[in-house]
C-alpha cells in the first residue's frame, strides 16, 4: 500500500518536472520559433501548449507578437521641388515571420536599428517624389498629406516583411517643420500678411459704418418726407373745412371783414405797444367833457 502511494507520488513529480523539459506554452501575445540542432524548423503563431524535444536537441525562441512603437529621429529631407523640410516619423510594427526575424534581426533592439535606416530611406524617397505644395497649400483640396503617409506605409511594408520579417502596421509623420533659417522669412511674411489684413479690416469697418449711417439718414429723410406730406394733407383738410365756414361769412362780407380786422387789431397791439392817438378817438374823447346824450323816448 505504502509503496504504491510512494511510487505514484514520485512518478507524478517526475512527470511534472519532465513536462518542463519536453513542452512549452505559446502565450496569446507571443510567437515562437523552434530550432532543432540550432537550425530553425518551425514557427508557431497560434497560442497553446506544444511538445518538443528537450534542449539542446530543440530550442524554442519566443517573441512578443504585439505592436511596438518605433519613434524616428528628426530628419531633414528635400521635396521634389528642392525645398527642404524637416520630418519626424514613427512606425508601429509587429513581428510577422519569426524565422526571418530571428535570422536577420535577432531581437527588438536589432529591429530598431534596421527600421531606422529603412525609415530614413523611405522618407527620402517618398518625400522626394512630392512637391512642397502637396504638404502645405492654400487650397486644402490639394494637400496630399494623408496620401503621402499611405505611400510611405506601402513602401515600408514590402521591404520590411521580405528583408526582416517585420509587419508594419502603421507609419505616420508626427512633426512637420522647416529649417531654422527659413523660419525668419516666414515670420516676415506673416507680419506683412497681418499688416495687410489689419488695413483691410479697418477699411471694411469704415465702409460699413459709413453705409449704416447714410442708410439711417436717408431713411430718416424719407420718413420725414412722408410725414410732411401727411401733415400737409392734414393742414389742407383743415383749410378746406375752414373754407366751408368762411363761405357762411358771405352772408355779410363787409361785417365779416370788419370783425376780422378788429380781431387782428387786438392781436397786433397785445403788448409792448406805444399808441399815439388823436384825442378825438372814442372813448378817449370822453376826457374832454361830458357827452351830449339824451335818453331815448
Amino acid at each position: 500500500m505504502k509503496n504504491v502511494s510512494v511510487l505514484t507520488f514520485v512518478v507524478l513529480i517526475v512527470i511534472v518536472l519532465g513536462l518542463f523539459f519536453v513542452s512549452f506554452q505559446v502565450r496569446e501575445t507571443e510567437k515562437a520559433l523552434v530550432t532543432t540542432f540550432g537550425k530553425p524548423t518551425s514557427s508557431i503563431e497560434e497560442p497553446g501548449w506544444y511538445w518538443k524535444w528537450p534542449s539542446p536537441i530543440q530550442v524554442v525562441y519566443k517573441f512578443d507578437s504585439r505592436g511596438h512603437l518605433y519613434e524616428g529621429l528628426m530628419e531633414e529631407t528635400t521635396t521634389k521641388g528642392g525645398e527642404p523640410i524637416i520630418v519626424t516619423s514613427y512606425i508601429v510594427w509587429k513581428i510577422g515571420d519569426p524565422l526571418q526575424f530571428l535570422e536577420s534581426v535577432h531581437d527588438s533592439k536589432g529591429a530598431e536599428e534596421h527600421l531606422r535606416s529603412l525609415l530614413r530611406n523611405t522618407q527620402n524617397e517618398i518625400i522626394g517624389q512630392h512637391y512642397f505644395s502637396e504638404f502645405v497649400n492654400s487650397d486644402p483640396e490639394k494637400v496630399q498629406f494623408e496620401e503621402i503617409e499611405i505611400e510611405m506605409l506601402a513602401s515600408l511594408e514590402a521591404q520590411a516583411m521580405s528583408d526582416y520579417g517585420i509587419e508594419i502596421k502603421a507609419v505616420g509623420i508626427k512633426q512637420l517643420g522647416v529649417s531654422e533659417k527659413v523660419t525668419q522669412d516666414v515670420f516676415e511674411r506673416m507680419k506683412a500678411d497681418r499688416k495687410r489684413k489689419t488695413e483691410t479690416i479697418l477699411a471694411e469697418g469704415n465702409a460699413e459704418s459709413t453705409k449704416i449711417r447714410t442708410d439711417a439718414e436717408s431713411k430718416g429723410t424719407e420718413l420725414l418726407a412722408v410725414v410732411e406730406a401727411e401733415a400737409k394733407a392734414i393742414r389742407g383738410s383743415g383749410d378746406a373745412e375752414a373754407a366751408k365756414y368762411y363761405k357762411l361769412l358771405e352772408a355779410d362780407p363787409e361785417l365779416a371783414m370788419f370783425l376780422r380786422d378788429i380781431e387782428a387789431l387786438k392781436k397786433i397791439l397785445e403788448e409792448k405797444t406805444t399808441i399815439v392817438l388823436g384825442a378825438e378817438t372814442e372813448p378817449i374823447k370822453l376826457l374832454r367833457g361830458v357827452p351830449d346824450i339824451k335818453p331815448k323816448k
Partner: protein
Amino acid sequence: MTDKEIEENSEKFDVNQGQEELDVANKSLTEALGVSFSILKIIMVILVILFIGSGVFSVQSEEQALVLRLGKIRGVGESRLLGPGFHWAFPEPIDEIVRIPVKKVQSLGIDSFWYFMTEEEKLGKVSRYAPATMNPIKDGYCLTRNDSISGVEGTDYNIVHSKWQLTYRIDNPERFFRNIYYRAPNPGEDFFDVTADMVEPLLRSMSADAIVTTMVKYSIDEAIVSNPDIPDNVESLLQQKLDQIDSGITVVEMQIAGKITWPRQVDDAFQASNKASQEKQKLITEAKAYSEKMLNEAGGPDAEQILVALKAEDLSEEQRKSLLSRLSGSSQEQIARARAYRTKVVETAKASAEYLHEILPEYRERPRLVLQKIYQDAIEEVLNNAEEKIFIQPAISGKSKELRILINRDPLIGKPKKSE
C-alpha cells in the same frame, strides 16, 4: 541433557533472541514509517487544497481580466472577459491572469507643438525676448495654410503653437491586450505605471500625427480663433489611426488646451490685427447706435418698420392712419402740429361764422349800434394792453404840430407776458 544438546539449545535461543530483536526493530521502523507516511499524506492533501485555493482571485471595479490557459485565452465570446468580483483559475503555470484597466478615463497632455520655455517662463514669468528664428529641435510648432484666394496658387504657410489634452479609455481590453505591447508590471508597480512607459508614447505619436495632418488643412485665421472643427477632426483622425492598429483604445475627447496661438516673434503684428478687429466692431456698433438714435428721434422705435409698411402699394386709408399713429418722435410732433393747426383753423372759422350769424339779426336792425359797441370794446382792450398811451390834441388851427417821441427805452420794462 547433553552438552551438545545444551549448546544447541543455547544457539537456538541466541538465534531466537536475535530474531526477536530484529522483529522488534522491524516493528518500530514500520511504525515510524507508517506515522510519517500518514503525516505526509495529510501534508499532501493540505498542499493540494492550498494549490486549488490559490486559484481564487478578484477583479477590481475598474478592471477586467483575461485568463490564459496554457497560453490561449480561456472561454468563448463574452465570457472571455471577467468583470469585477471573485473568480477562480488554475494557478500558474497552467493559467495566467491578465488584468486590464477599463472604464478608467485617462488623460494625456501633448506639448510637442509648443515653443521652448525656460524653467522661469514655465513658472509664469513672461519674457519679452523671442529668438528671431524657430529652432525645430527645441521649439515645437505646426504649419497652417494661408487663406485661399480663388485662382491664386499658394504654398505660403504659417507657423502656430498649440497645446492639446487627450482623454482616452481602453474600451476593448482583449484587442488592446493582443495588439499593443506593454511590459509586465514589476513588483510594486501597477498597470498604470506601465502605461506611462508603454502606451503614452504611442498615443503621443499618433495624436501628433493627427494634429499635424489636420492643422495643415486649416488657415491661420481659423486656427487662432480655435475653430471647433479642428479638434473634432483631430479626434476622428486619431480614432481612425488607433482602430487601424486594432488598439482597442477609444478617444474620449481631444481638446485644445487653451488656444492655438501665433509665434511670439510676430506678436505685435497679430495684436495690431486684433485691435483693428475690435476697432472695426466699435465703428459698426457706434454707427448702428447712431442710426437707431436717429430713427428713434425721427419716428420712434418702430420707425423703420412703419416706413417700410407705408411704402406698400395698396394701403387703405385706415391702414395708413393706424401706421402713422404708431409713429412717435419728431414725426409725431409734426403731425400733431398739423392737427393742431387744422383744429385751430377750423375752430376759428367756425367761431367766426357762428359769431357772425349770432349778431347778424341784431346788426341788421341796429347796424350802427352794433358796430359802435364792437369797436369800442376793441379799442378799450387795446388801450388797456398798451404800455404807453399818448393822446394828442389836434391843432385848433390848421397848424400841424410836431411830436417827438423818445424810443429806445429799457426793453426790460414791460408787462409780463399773458399766459395762454
